[in-house]
């Protein structure tokens, strides 16, 4: 169950999308998500769908893994859908006992679903095809200008990459602790809400202790290798744009301008 958490996971494969410059992918996802929320019409959604399908196809990632990413938020999604469906006012389409379903409600739900699902797919596509190191390299490059404003860009991206790196470790740790406590006959799934929250204590405390211990170890290991932040630090792999990267930028520009024009016309 815990292994369904796929945020920040990398799917090793050799595809065009994997080889793209991480900055390109970063910009792409940013603009893509922006466009999803800016232009909410049928044509732009169709375009977005086509783009997504093409990207998934070229990334050589089994659809199974993309769908896995939804599992954790599935309940949330269903909940918002129903809330939105039943409480939105407007032209009544049909009535079901005390609940009324309105035209506006249905349209809103479609908007929400498309946006959230596409957002998740696009961002998990980004992390599936980009190793955390490359991703943080890209972020560091992109935000480098902020250094002038005294923003510690390197440190922030380093924090992010460590956080990403720690997700699977903590998931594993949680799994282990849950097993250890259930071998002491702990019952996770019974009792009322209050009892269930209390049930988390035997999991959370060892987990926090483990996380702090690991953080401590990591800090020590980094310091003993003379890590001292971004100042004067060089990179082993320097990011360089290639031909396909420019091609993708052009594609992105065409997509965005086209959607914008349609949005303005409609």
């Amino acid at each position: 169950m815990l292994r369904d958490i796929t945020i920040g996971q990398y799917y090793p494969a050799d595809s065009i999308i994997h080889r793209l410059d991480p900055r390109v992918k970063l910009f792409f996802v940013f603009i893509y998500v922006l466009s999803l929320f800016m232009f909410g019409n049928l044509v732009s959604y169709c375009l977005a769908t086509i783009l997504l399908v093409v990207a998934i196809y070229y990334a050589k990632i089994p659809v199974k893994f993309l769908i896995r990413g939804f599992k954790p938020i599935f309940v949330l999604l269903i909940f918002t859908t129903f809330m939105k469906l039943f409480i939105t006012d407007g032209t009544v389409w049909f009535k079901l006992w005390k609940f009324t379903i309105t035209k506006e409600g249905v349209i809103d739900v479609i908007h929400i679903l498309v946006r959230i699902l596409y957002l998740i797919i696009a961002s998990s596509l980004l992390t599936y095809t980009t190793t955390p190191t490359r991703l943080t390299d890209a972020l560091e490059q992109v935000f480098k200008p902020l250094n002038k404003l005294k923003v510690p860009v390197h440190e922030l991206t380093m924090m992010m990459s460590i956080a990403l790196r720690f997700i699977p470790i903590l998931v594993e740790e949680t799994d282990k602790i849950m097993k250890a406590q259930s071998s002491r006959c702990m019952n996770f799934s019974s009792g009322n809400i209050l009892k269930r929250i209390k049930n988390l204590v035997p999991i959370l405390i060892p987990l926090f202790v483990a996380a702090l211990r690991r953080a401590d170890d990591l800090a020590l290991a980094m310091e003993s290798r003379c890590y001292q932040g971004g100042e004067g630090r060089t990179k082993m792999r320097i990011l360089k744009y290639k031909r396909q990267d420019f091609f993708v930028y052009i594609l992105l520009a065409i997509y965005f301008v086209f959607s914008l024009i349609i949005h303005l016309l409609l």
Partner: protein
Amino acid sequence: MSIILDKISCKYETDMINEHYALKCITAKIEDGEFIGVIGHTGSGKSTLMQILNGLVVPSGGSVYYNGEDIHEKNYNLYKLRSEVGMVFQYPEHQLFETTVFRDVCFGPKNLGWSKKEIELSAFEALFQMGIESELYYQSPFDLSGGQKRRVAIAGVLAMKPKVLILDEPAVGLDPMGKRNILDKIAEIKAERNCTVILVSHSMDDIADYVNRVWVLDDGKLIIDASVKEVFSHKRDLEEIGLAVPQITSIMHMLKDKGLVVNTNVTTIDEAKMEILRKLR
């Protein structure tokens, strides 16, 4: 009363694509009151096998029978199984969470729904058996030393009065004294309660000193299931899979190579002493 493993196999999804068989077709039977040692190189599937005995990992093939009942039947009560088959994990100190040592040891029995008196009595008994000084009972478990934490965690399992006790490398990472101490305590408890004990260990000497029967795992397969003496007579086979015989046994082998014709089928220091004296007399 017994545990039967019937053609157990178990697979893990390693990264997102690959599968890996951690256990392959393991068949074995554990009788009441046995002291079984499990050895095998790192990643040979020892921990996985132990978790299957406790019902924590569901095997992908085969069945586990506890006292004649399949533990993965739909309406089998896993809580009952876990109350009778106690498991001490690798690094059990990582599971401590309560505010005091005593409360942490009470956690297991509390989950079994015993009366308060029974719980406290059992916790005291377990702490006493593991040799925890009574000043420590009301301290935070996080303030203890590594070895003390380990003993508290083991006491937490013992307090549930298991009929079968599984220990996954209980002495790893401790100094020689602490290690002896824990293993002696376990042997004592076994003698006293007459329970079944399964001990996973990387130390051949510990295995030779404490257990009656040995399982040798290699790459997920149970390749030898025999008495201590017999297992350690397969010196060559063990070395091939990255294991070794107890130090005293290899000393006897060396003596033999040097020309002193001793019987090398010896696993403890006392036996070796007798054998050498017999030869020199």
